[in-house]
C-alpha cells in the first residue's frame, strides 16, 4: 500500500548492481556513508539486519531481512534505535531496489514505507537523512573515496 506516508528516493550510480549490493550489505562500506555505522547482515530472509554504532557499543538498528533477491532487491525492517523517541515508534520498512540501466549505470531506489504511525521517524529520515545516505553511497561506490583498507 503506497500512500502519503511513503517516501521514495532515487539516484543513478555508475556501478554494477553487485557493487551497490555490497555497499548496502557490507560494514566496510556502510561505515563510509551511513553516519559511520557498520551493517551486520547475511542478506538471508528472516535473519537479523543490524546497524552498529561507529564505536560498536550500541545498536542503531536491529530488525530483520524481510525479502532478498541479490543483487536487485532487499527489504528490511526499520526502527531508529539511536534516539529513544524514534525507537518508541512502530517499525517501518525500507526497500532497496537496484535496477541495471544502459551505459554501466544502475538506478538505486529506496522506498521507506509503513510510516503512518511513526511520524517522528518519517520526518527524521525525510529531512537530510536518506538524501545524505544515498548521495554518500553514490560517492563511495563511484570513487571508492574514503575507503581505507
Amino acid at each position, binding site marked *: 500500500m503506497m500512500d502519503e506516508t511513503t517516501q521514495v528516493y532515487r539516484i543513478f550510480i555508475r556501478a554494477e548492481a553487485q557493487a551497490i549490493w555490497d555497499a548496502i550489505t557490507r560494514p566496510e562500506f556502510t561505515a563510509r556513508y551511513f553516519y559511520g555505522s557498520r551493517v551486520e547482515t547475511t542478506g538471508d530472509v528472516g535473519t537479523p539486519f543490524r546497524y552498529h554504532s561507529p564505536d560498536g557499543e550500541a545498536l542503531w538498528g536491529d530488525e530483520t531481512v524481510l525479502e532478498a533477491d541479490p543483487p536487485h532487491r532487499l527489504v528490511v525492517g526499520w526502527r531508529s534505535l539511536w534516539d529513544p523517541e524514534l525507537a518508541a515508534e512502530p517499525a517501518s520498512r525500507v526497500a532497496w531496489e537496484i535496477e541495471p540501466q544502459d551505459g554501466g549505470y544502475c538506478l538505486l531506489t529506496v522506498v521507506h514505507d509503513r510510516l503512518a504511525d511513526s511520524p517522528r521517524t518519517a520526518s527524521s529520515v525525510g529531512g537530510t537523512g536518506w538524501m545524505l545516505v*544515498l548521495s554518500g553511497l553514490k560517492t563511495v561506490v563511484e570513487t571508492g573515496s574514503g575507503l581505507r583498507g
Partner: protein
Amino acid sequence: MDDLDPVFKALADPTRRALLDRLRERGGQSLTDLEREMPMSRFGVAKHLQVLADADLVVTRRAGRQKLHFLNPVPIRRIHDRWIDKYTEGRVSALTELKQEMEEDG
C-alpha cells in the same frame, strides 16, 4: 547522468517549483490530485511533471491502477554536495576520520 542541467532547468519554472512544494507536503499524489490543486489543465500539469521526472526530481510508482508521484530530493542534495560540501562536510568527515584513526592507534 550526474548532469545537473535538467535539474536547474526543471527548477527554473515557478509552476514546477509549486508542484514540488505540493509533493513535499504530501507524497504519493496522482495526476488527478495534483491537477485539482493547480490552476492549469491536466495536460499542462502532466507536461511539467514530465520535465520534473526527466530531471529525476519526481519519481513515479504504480499502486494498483494509479500512478503516484513522489518528490525525490536527491538531485538537490547532489547540488549541495558538489558545491557546498567543499566548505562544510569535508571538514567534518576529516575530523571524524582523524578521531577514528587516533582511537584505532590509541
